[in-house]
Structure formats: structure tokens, C-alpha cells
């Protein structure tokens, strides 16, 4: 006969399990602890910004890169960009060449003779404002975040300059501001958006290759752009939830 354990009966076990589970549930409801694990999605009727870039329309003038630097006090010396333009050249032998001298601001010199070019096109680049952004997930202090309307922003007063996010961004869209030592990136000109103005890069684009809009509004230009074109996102295999849609995106672009 099995000896019954008086100290630890089945009833006792269920009782204790219940108390612990209840306690954990109660603790998780306590409001001061809530912020740290807030995964609240904004309401579905709120604005949720997306961006469209039309490679067929881009002529590589880099007005966007210039305007972005002027509007947002991005350092003028090379290698610091929130927005830039790359020229892709695919030769007849299948070689892919990418050039972006000073983000396109210095103009392009084509090293490949025209007879050897299979195809060539410009790709304007900027922050993808991902909905599952890798950069905001790695921030140890909560200094970068996705705003309620889907714009990835930085809080320069809270950033400690650890550079995790710079490495986490698969699109190379972040840099450390040399004067402040904090990270900086495209804000989709949040200060302009909120006052009803277009971002500076979109305002100055001479061919209308750039647009943005509310992805949740089926009547917005942005949704129409996605519907009417064969759009693609950069590095979809990384599951970043990129909200930057390119028209006529070639396989070679990365």
C-alpha cells in the first residue's frame, strides 16, 4: 500500500498552485508595472503612416537628400544621412554596381560604358518606419519607439548613445550625431506632419516620386499607390514589417 503523504496532499498542491497563479496575475495587473510591458497597439481607426517611393519616377537629383539635411540639421559632411539616393547599375554580365557619392548630392559618374549596361535605375532610401522595427526593440532605455501613428522616432534627451539601434537597423538608416553623441534618424518630418505639411523630401521632389499617407484609410493616395502598382519592400525576409513600399523594385536592390 502506498503511504499517503500528509504534508503534501493533492488538495494542498492545487491550493498552492492556485494562489501562486492568482498572485502572478494580480501583480501583472498592477498599474506601476504596466508600462514596462505595454504592447498596446493603437486603435485601428487611428492614422498609420506608410511611405511610397516610385523608382520609375526617381531621376536621382538628390533634392530629397539636400532638403532633408537642411530641414533637420543633419551634418553636412558625408556619411550622415536620413535620406539618400543610390544608383544601381546592372551590367550585361550580371554584375551589380551601386554608387551613391555623398548620398547622391555630388551627382553620379557612370563608370560603366553605356553599351555594357543591362539596366540602371535610382533607388531613393530612407527609414522604413517598420511596424516591427528591430531598432526600437533593442533600445535598452526606451529612447526610440514607434509613435501611435506608426512613425519611428528618437527621444534625444533620453538616448544614451549606446549604438545598439544603429547596428540593429538592417537598412542603415541611423547615425550618431557627432555633436550630441545621440542617435538620429528620419522622423518622416514629424514636426511638419503634425502641422499638416508634407515632409521636406516629398515637398521638394520634382517628379512626385515620393508619397506618404494613412495605410488604414482605403481612400488615401498611399493605399491607391499600393493597389495600382506592383510594390515591394526591402529585405522582406527579415520580417521587419517595413511600411516603405517601392514601385518597380528589382531583385538586386538590398
Amino acid at each position: 500500500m502506498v503511504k499517503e503523504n500528509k504534508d503534501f496532499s493533492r488538495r494542498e498542491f492545487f491550493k498552492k498552485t492556485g494562489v501562486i497563479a492568482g498572485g502572478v496575475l494580480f501583480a501583472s495587473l498592477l498599474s506601476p508595472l504596466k508600462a514596462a510591458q505595454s504592447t498596446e497597439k493603437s486603435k485601428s481607426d487611428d492614422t498609420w503612416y506608410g511611405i511610397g517611393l516610385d523608382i520609375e519616377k526617381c531621376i536621382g537629383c538628390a533634392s530629397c537628400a539636400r532638403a532633408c539635411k537642411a530641414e533637420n540639421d543633419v551634418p553636412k559632411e558625408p556619411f550622415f544621412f536620413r535620406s539618400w539616393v543610390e544608383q544601381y547599375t546592372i551590367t550585361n554580365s550580371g554584375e551589380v554596381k551601386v554608387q551613391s557619392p555623398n548620398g547622391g548630392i555630388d551627382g553620379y559618374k557612370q563608370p560603366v560604358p553605356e553599351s555594357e549596361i543591362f539596366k540602371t535605375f535610382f533607388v531613393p532610401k530612407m527609414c522604413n518606419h517598420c511596424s516591427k522595427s528591430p531598432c526600437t526593440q533593442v533600445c535598452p532605455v526606451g529612447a526610440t519607439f514607434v509613435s501611435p501613428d506608426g512613425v519611428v522616432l528618437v527621444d534625444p534627451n533620453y538616448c544614451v548613445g549606446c549604438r545598439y539601434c544603429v547596428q540593429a537597423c538592417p537598412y542603415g538608416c541611423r547615425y550618431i550625431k557627432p555633436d550630441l553623441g545621440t542617435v538620429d534618424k528620419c522622423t518622416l518630418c514629424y514636426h511638419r506632419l503634425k502641422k499638416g505639411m508634407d515632409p521636406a523630401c516629398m515637398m521638394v521632389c520634382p517628379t512626385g516620386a515620393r508619397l506618404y499617407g494613412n495605410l488604414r484609410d482605403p481612400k488615401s493616395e498611399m493605399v491607391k499607390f499600393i493597389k495600382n502598382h506592383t510594390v515591394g519592400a526591402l529585405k522582406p525576409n527579415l520580417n521587419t514589417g517595413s511600411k516603405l513600399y517601392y514601385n518597380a523594385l528589382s531583385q538586386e536592390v538590398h
Partner: protein
Amino acid sequence: MPVQVKRLLIAFAVFIALFLVARHFLRPATFGEYGHYRGAALKENEDRPIKYVNMNETCITCHDSIAAVRDSSVHKSINCQTCHGPGYKHVDDPQKTNIVKEHAREFCGRCHSKNPARAKVIKQIDMNEHNKEDECISCHNSHNPVLW
């Protein structure tokens, strides 16, 4: 309850209390308002100064004749500030010195230098051959880029 468990519980309670006190004083006021960040950062991002001004409310109110020329040309979809740079200083204090007025050939070449990647609808020239001694604007009116 064994005495060592009791002591451990007391130690945990002290740690948790200290953590909560420290958290109370170190956490910024608006942290967690919308998510795991300072809610006030949204407003701070919003309050940055605007440099590229609304063209219809500013440029065109004074330079209406030039705007009319532009509107009748192939350059009609181009914002003034695409070529003239941000207008915020010029709007506050209209001087010839605080707005960009480009003359260089390379400036026009940003859009119009020959590049096979550019759409064919954009008129393109070989910068090294097309009247290379002259400024573009000595023959073309930039606001309506037919010949003068």
C-alpha cells in the same frame, strides 16, 4: 516557516521596496503614457522648427509673376524651394542674400545631365559637350526652360 526562508523574504521585500522607491524618483513623468518611452518626446519631436515653408502661402504672395511663368511651363510641378533652398529666413526678412540663387551648370545638371537611369521624359544633355563655356541661364529661363 523556517527561519532562513523568513530572512530571505525580508531581504526580498526590502529590495523590492528600494526598487519601487528608486523607480518612483528616477522615472520621467510621462514615461509609459503611450508605451515604453517618454510621452513628452512626441511633443518635443513635433515642436522642431520648420524650414521649408508652404509655397502657396509665402513665395507666391510676393513673386506672383514668376509663379505665373513657372505655372505655364514644364517646371510647373516643381516647388520653388527645390532649387531656391529652404525659405524660412527669406520669409522673415526678404533679402537677396538669404535665399539660394544658383547659376552653376552643375546645379541644372542635377536633373538634366545625361544619365541612362533617368526617365526619358526628362530632357538631358551631355554636360561636357553642350555649350560647355556658357551658363545654362544665359540661354534658358529656368522658370520656363525654353530658350529666352
